């Protein structure tokens, strides 16, 4: 066992579960000579204590006959829990018959009542704890080829350190930048050498900071040490690895979980440190990161949203909100179209911002399911307008890059349109500018095919990236949606105004309509109008509305036009 553990491992904690106060105190007095003692009056109280303090307990001394919850029931309960059943139980009994049943339920040994000589009890307790700790470690390899602790031993010793004292410690995940490249360029042998050098540097570091070091796998290491006063000490590790490894500019990344809480399971804490470490992956300006609860919460939230998506689709939690598009060419702006926008009314979390779930779904390819859902819902809404009011306006739906990889996309859209008794011109498709810039011929052909079928294609977010005006005549586009950054300053920045006017004019020559998004005030609207923009959409006219509210526009249309 490690030196440091031996030095302070004397006081382990024992839970005494006994309903008779006199027996409880007598036994407690016997074992408190060498151990810290926690007491419970019955099985139920003991379970409560275990749930709070399971990581710090080395043994349970358990009476059998007790009110509320007896010892047998208690043992049955802790056997159900992977963590709790790791704590050895010694039964206190005067009944020989009970011994057999106790063994079946997992008791390690017995202490007879009335109690033996205290020294005998102490020796027995000590032996059981030792035996059990050894058994836990048997068949496992303590150190790996780098000379550092392996995962299981590291976890075990971290828990033992935590049970000994409450000193705040840092848990630090360490990994080597571009390690796979080192293996590839310099060879496996050199890679292994770097791992050993890193391990040696971590050991040197511990000589000063005291604690434990682990080599988990590949280039992943951990340190568990006294709280660092100065993180510069970590940079010395990096320097040692770089110099001794003879590979210049070898970088180490350090993810630090500060004041590592004793309440949390060690593996969870390791994950948090790795999480912090991973935030440095594409950051070349720093190599130490601290665990950030908010970042981690975001990650957990993302996982939850991804996991909830199918259920949300089945339970129709995704709603279509409609934002009107106004034609501003005449004297008075009038509504001519709308854009369908996805909103998620989560059953438990309430309204979730599209900024939160759409990029997430896009990253994971799940946005395809959402796009079909929105297309389907939009078709239903338009059908209902037609049924109710005998008229409708075209609604544009967003088509993501992954949708365009689907060879049957066109057939699927046409099927939905036919099923709802709509015409192709009832639904427009918005394809973001970045899709056009991928330079993927198959994708462009598919967009062109959709356009040839009769869909109006709107290029979304024009100007957000590095788009070029020549795309307007080389690409299949019917309308150009100017990114909202243009509207933001068009009324105050004369140069921006001329940029917009130039785009609008150029699009006009090519017969491509221009739609400006994000118009939020009268000045922006007037500047857009002056620049010759065809349609606008934005909060100045209307925010995106749920279908019930949007219906007012259709009613007005019916009264005015239909």
């Amino acid at each position, binding site marked *: 066992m490690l030196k440091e553990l031996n030095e302070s491992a004397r006081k382990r904690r024992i839970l005494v579960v006994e309903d008779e106060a*006199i027996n409880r105190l007598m036994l407690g*007095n016997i074992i408190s000579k060498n151990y810290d003692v926690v007491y419970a009056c019955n099985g139920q109280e003991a379970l409560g204590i275990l749930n709070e303090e399971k990581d710090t307990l080395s043994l349970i001394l358990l009476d059998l006959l007790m009110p509320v919850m007896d010892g047998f029931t208690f043992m049955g309960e802790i056997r159900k829990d992977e963590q709790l059943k790791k704590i050895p139980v010694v039964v206190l009994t*005067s009944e020989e018959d009970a011994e057999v049943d106790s063994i079946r339920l997992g008791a390690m040994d017995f202490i007879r009542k*009335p109690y033996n*000589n205290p020294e005998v009890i102490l020796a027995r307790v000590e032996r059981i704890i030792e035996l059990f700790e050894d058994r836990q470690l048997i068949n496992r390899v303590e150190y790996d080829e780098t000379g550092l602790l392996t995962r299981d031993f590291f976890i075990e010793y971290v828990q033992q350190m935590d049970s000994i004292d409450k000193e705040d410690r840092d848990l630090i995940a360490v990994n080597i930048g571009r390690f796979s490249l080192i293996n590839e360029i310099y060879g496996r042998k050199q890679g292994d050498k770097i791992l050993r050098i890193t391990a040696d540097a971590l050991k040197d570091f511990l000589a000063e900071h005291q604690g434990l070091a682990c080599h988990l796998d590949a280039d992943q290491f951990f340190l568990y040490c006294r709280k660092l006063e100065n993180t510069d000490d970590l940079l010395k590790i990096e320097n040692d690895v770089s110099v001794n490894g003879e590979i210049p500019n070898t970088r180490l990344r350090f993810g630090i979980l500060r004041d590592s809480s004793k309440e949390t399971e060690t593996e969870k804490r390791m994950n948090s440190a790795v999480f912090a470490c991973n935030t440095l992956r594409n950051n070349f300006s720093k190599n130490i990161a601290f665990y950030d609860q908010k970042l981690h919460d975001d990650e957990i939230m993302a996982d939850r949203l991804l996991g909830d998506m199918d259920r949300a689709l089945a339970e129709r939690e995704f709603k279509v909100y409609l934002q009107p598009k106004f034609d501003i060419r005449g004297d008075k702006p009038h509504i001519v179209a709308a854009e369908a926008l996805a909103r998620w009314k989560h059953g438990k979390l309430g309204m979730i911002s599209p900024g939160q779930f759409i990029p997430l779904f896009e990253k994971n390819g799940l946005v395809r399911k959402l796009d079909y859902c929105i297309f389907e819902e939009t078709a239903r809404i338009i059908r209902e307008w037609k049924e109710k009011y005998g008229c409708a306006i075209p609604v544009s739906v967003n088509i993501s890059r992954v949708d365009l990889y689907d060879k049957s996309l066109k057939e699927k859209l046409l099927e939905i349109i036919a099923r709802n008794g709509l015409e192709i011109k009832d639904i427009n498709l918005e394809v973001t500018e970045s899709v056009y810039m991928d330079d993927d011929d198959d994708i462009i052909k598919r967009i062109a095919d959709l356009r040839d079928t009769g869909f109006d294609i709107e290029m979304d977010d024009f100007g957000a990236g590095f788009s070029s005006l020549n795309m307007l005549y080389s690409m299949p586009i019917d309308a150009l949606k100017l990114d909202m950054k243009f509207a933001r300053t068009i009324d105050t920045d004369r140069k921006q105004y001329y940029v917009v006017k130039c785009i609008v004019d150029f699009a006009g020559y090519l017969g491509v309509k221009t739609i400006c998004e994000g118009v939020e005030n009268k000045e922006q609207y007037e500047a857009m109008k002056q620049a010759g923009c065809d349609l606008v959409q934005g909060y100045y006219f209307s925010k995106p509305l749920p279908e019930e509210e949007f219906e007012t526009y259709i009613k007005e249309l019916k009264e005015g036009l239909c």
Partner: protein
Amino acid sequence: MLSIENLKEYGADVEEGLTRCYNNEEFYLKLVAMILDEPSFGALKKAIEDNDLTAAFEAAHGLKGVTANLALSPLRDPVIEITELLRSRTEMDYGPLMTRIDEAYKRLEELIRE
């Protein structure tokens, strides 16, 4: 006042009890005095009166554990006897046995309260 001498006169195996307390007399006497707070004696009496042999066994078992650990032989011995009878739920007149227990308990109580 409760003392080691009194307990010896009472018939307790004081050496045995003290051994379990690392020969700490004060601690031992404190534990003996706590017996008046133990609910098992009252529970045993009531259960016998109600002829509830299961409850009586549980109470007797508890009292046995405590009196045996404290080595209070005059009380412990009849309690062991009644515990074994109650363990098999023997239907019998527990009166005489309870009287012995009662007497031993009262003598101890007097010592403690003196």
